[in-house]
């Protein structure tokens, strides 16, 4: 049993006495042990992981820094990250080794090291679990919510179908973890169900027990695929019970945001939504409600228009117009500004032991191609933000795989490095050509 979860039988005896009040105790006093080096129950200090996705690549000559190593110069498109630059490691020149190229979909392999499956025209499903789910399987049991999945721009691709381009996180081909785009729904998911009044939690867990029995009867009549679906359903039931029976967070919870991610006169409120979502993530991490997240900022091949830049044409459309590459560049800078805005909130947030959230988190950021104009995945860039309690290198570096311009360096090596930061026993990630069994030593931190 995790520390936030009461033993179920204990809970059933005791919960009717009333839930603990939700009080605004300072997080450190409530949660830390006397030495400040572990949580009060002796478990290690929490480290968080997040993926952050932006669609349609960058413009490589304006994105890749001009020199490698520490103290690398920020490029034009990385300039927005100046305020957090010591926490930024940029990886360039690595090859996404996906075995199938159908435009955009293959780029998503950078998040899981698997080639897509069930490919049919512009349809595909993710071929395997994404890195956030591998890490959530390792650390998600310690928090009321295993992982949370958010999106910012809701105008995803209408020409692509399947799960690959419409969810950033996947547990498997039929288990996409779709993002929520409405901050109010995210608030409900993260904070809405703690400390119910009146406290009916034993009744709710009783219903869930009945669901388990019903599911057990049903599954005998079904085949393999549907049994896998029922397994996922039961995982969700277990997750809900864990959340229902979790002690309420000891930190003060934020109020529900006003923002609902509604377009006004054709303008999508991307900056406002990004800011609110970032605030919610900071709360969720510092309150230790979850330790794993994904953010689908802007979909690959999406319909999104960066109206806040005065653009009239979709960013994806621009990437395919050689005459619009300056607009593409401005779009990339704009996306990096939004990414930076979130990272700056992380840097300003105080974690349980007084460090900031970039000290205690690892954020893996990439796209669905290197450059949208060509859909190339040869030099697909990755940004790592935060060092996760010195698991990754700090201050950050620019690592460039050699030789230029096409190396055999495997983007999945970065995935494995991240996975080993949370699961030192991990030996490989992915399958087939994109598989990696070789973590990238150049980005190991002092405590890797």
């Amino acid at each position: 049993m995790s520390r936030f979860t009461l033993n179920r039988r204990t809970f059933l005896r005791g919960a009717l006495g009333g839930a603990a009040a939700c009080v605004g105790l300072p997080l450190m006093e409530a949660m830390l042990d006397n030495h400040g080096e572990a949580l009060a129950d002796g478990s290690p200090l929490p480290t968080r992981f997040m993926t952050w996705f932006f669609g349609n690549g960058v413009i490589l000559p304006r994105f890749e820094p001009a020199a490698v190593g520490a103290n690398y110069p920020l490029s034009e498109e990385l300039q927005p990250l100046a305020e957090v630059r010591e926490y930024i490691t940029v990886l360039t020149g690595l090859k996404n080794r996906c075995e199938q190229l159908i435009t955009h979909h293959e780029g998503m392999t950078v998040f899981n090291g698997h080639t897509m499956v069930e490919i049919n025209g512009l349809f595909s499903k993710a071929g395997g679990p994404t890195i956030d789910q591998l890490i959530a399987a390792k650390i998600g049991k310690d928090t009321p919510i295993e992982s949370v999945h958010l999106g910012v721009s809701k105008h995803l691709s209408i020409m692509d179908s399947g799960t690959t381009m419409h969810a950033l996180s996947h547990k498997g081909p039929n288990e996409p973890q779709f993002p929520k785009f409405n901050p109010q729904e995210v608030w409900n998911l993260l904070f809405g169900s703690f400390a119910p009044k009146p406290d009916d939690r034993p009744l709710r867990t009783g219903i869930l027990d009945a669901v388990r029995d019903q599911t057990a009867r049903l599954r005998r009549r079904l085949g393999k695929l549907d049994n896998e679906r029922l397994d996922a359903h039961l995982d969700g039931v277990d997750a809900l019970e864990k959340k229902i029976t979790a002690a309420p967070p000891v930190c003060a919870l934020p109020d529900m945001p006003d923002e609902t991610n509604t377009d006004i006169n054709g303008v999508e409120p991307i900056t406002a939504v990004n800011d609110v979502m970032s605030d919610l993530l900071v709360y969720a991490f510092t309150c230790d409600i979850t330790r794993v997240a994904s953010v689908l900022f802007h979909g690959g091949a999406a319909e999104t228009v960066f109206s806040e830049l005065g653009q009239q044409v979709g960013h994806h459309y621009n990437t395919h117009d050689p005459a619009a590459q300056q607009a593409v560049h401005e779009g990339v800078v704009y996306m990096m500004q939004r990414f930076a805005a979130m990272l700056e909130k992380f840097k300003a947030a105080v974690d349980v032991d007084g460090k900031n959230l970039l000290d205690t988190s690892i954020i893996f950021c990439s796209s669905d191609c290197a450059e949208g104009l060509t859909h190339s995945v040869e030099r697909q860039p990755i940004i790592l933000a935060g060092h996760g309690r010195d698991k990754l290198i700090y201050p950050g570096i620019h690592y460039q795989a050699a030789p230029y311009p096409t190396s055999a360096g495997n983007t999945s090596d970065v995935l494995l490095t991240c996975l080993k930061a949370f699961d030192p026993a991990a030996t490989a990630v992915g399958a087939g050509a994109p598989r990696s069994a070789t973590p990238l030593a150049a980005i190991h931190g002092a405590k890797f």
Partner: protein
Amino acid sequence: MLRSHVCALSVGVSFALVGCASDPADSATLDPSASTTSDVTDGTTADPTTGEPPGEPFEPAPGGLRRLLRHQYVGSVRYLLGDAAAAAADPPNDYSLHGFDAIGAAELSLQASAIEQIETSARAVAAAAVADRGRLGSFVPCVLEPEPTDACYQKVADDLGRLAWRRPLTAEETAPLVDIAVQARNWADDDFAAGLQYELMALLQAPEFLYIVEVGEPADGDPNNRPLTPAELATRMSFFLLGRTPDAELLDLAATGGLASPEQIRATAAALLARPEARDTLRTFYSELLLLRDLPGVNKSAELFPNFTPELARAMQQETLHLLDDIVWDQDADFRSLFDADYTFVDATLAAFYGLPAPTEPGFQAVPLEPEHERAGLLGHASFLARLAHPSLTSPTRRGLFVRTKLLCEGVAPPPPGVDTSLPPPDPNKPQTMKQKLVQHMEDPKCNGCHVQIDPIGFALEHFDAIGAWRPNDQGLPLDVTGSTADLGAFDGARELAGLLATDERTASCVIRNFIRGSLGHLETLGERPVFLDLEDSFADGGFRLQHLLVELTASPIFRSVGAPK
């Protein structure tokens, strides 16, 4: 109807989904989830050039679980518990596969946040249903009594449970529901309503409510051909035609052998089609297929198209749905006129947008479309033209691809690896129309295999801008709306294209395929082909009337049976 060689060819090809580009192997697998059956979708079991081999056996698509779609959940709640409960319902989102939510609902798993949303929705629905017990009381009168006893919880489990789970519940199944109700009553100081609320929550969170179970019973010991049980068939018919759980009469009919023969099924289906919910269900179906649902939310350049308001977009949706209603219900006419009708429906907003005379009365009215309007049928509807365009530019490729995949049901391969999908850079001294740019693009041999089949369809629609308004030219340059494809032949403008599409045999076939995909939740399989060909004939023999097709589809073995559970 005498089946022509071309028709058989198109079926063979379409079932095998041959792509048009350089690598058809990528697109050969039609339905991977069905590959566990003996279906072979690469065409090796049937010679696509000669049609079906003699004696080709019918094998239904796999059975199993299909999650209730949102509209089916809400429709069921409305039927079971009333309008207030339906208004409170907020089940998890639908996510489509292959363009249809129903296929996603048959294949994808629910994520943890969705399970929580199921609980939240059940709580809200149950609270509303308990506060306003009229509808529930019509099925279980004891809930309306002044002081019901716990025995009433048993009645709810038995009688409402049967309607919600679409079959009788066993004592083993009702006992936990009643237990939950009694515990809740005790917890709430002997408040009957509290017990009722938690009992309803339990009923609505059960997998038996959330998933339609279709596994049938093996016929003659063949595990791959399993007629649906009577209750499963009644359920499938009700969700297909009415979008909701079956009512007591239909379940009774099924239980007493009233759905045993095709004739009985036809008569029942025809009776269900006469209900108002059938219209709503068909509107829901076509709102998904024709991408009408999210039209008010699509991005259009506010600078170029300040008139593209949500109000206008909703009027565009309604135009298409009015024409659909008129053809299917009011006229019961040849459904293919959806694609080439020389009339349409406009309100004042849309009439102004199209440059047509305003209707004389409020709301939508039928108006004739003259040749000079250059519009006919769906391809002249602003709903289609605006949805299949970019925020500021037209997209002959998107429009053509939609016609290929959704109206002709053809598969199209993705761009080949390494291709530069960019259009040629503009020369400021030589402005080009969209068509001229694409024609130049089509000269690339890596691209033209597909684009010569796709883009010319869109060229015929170039008189309609990115929100579907008529335009005399493209950036001041004259428009050439002629085009041709190998299969459709030559056409000049939208009306000629519409005429060709309406009479193409693939169009009628695709109407049927879309119901299999979007209602039954699977891509059609090769094993279904023998029966599918019969359905094509039946559709034609009935004058291509959609009501007739829907009745015939329910009576078809494709509808009445499933294969081994997936």
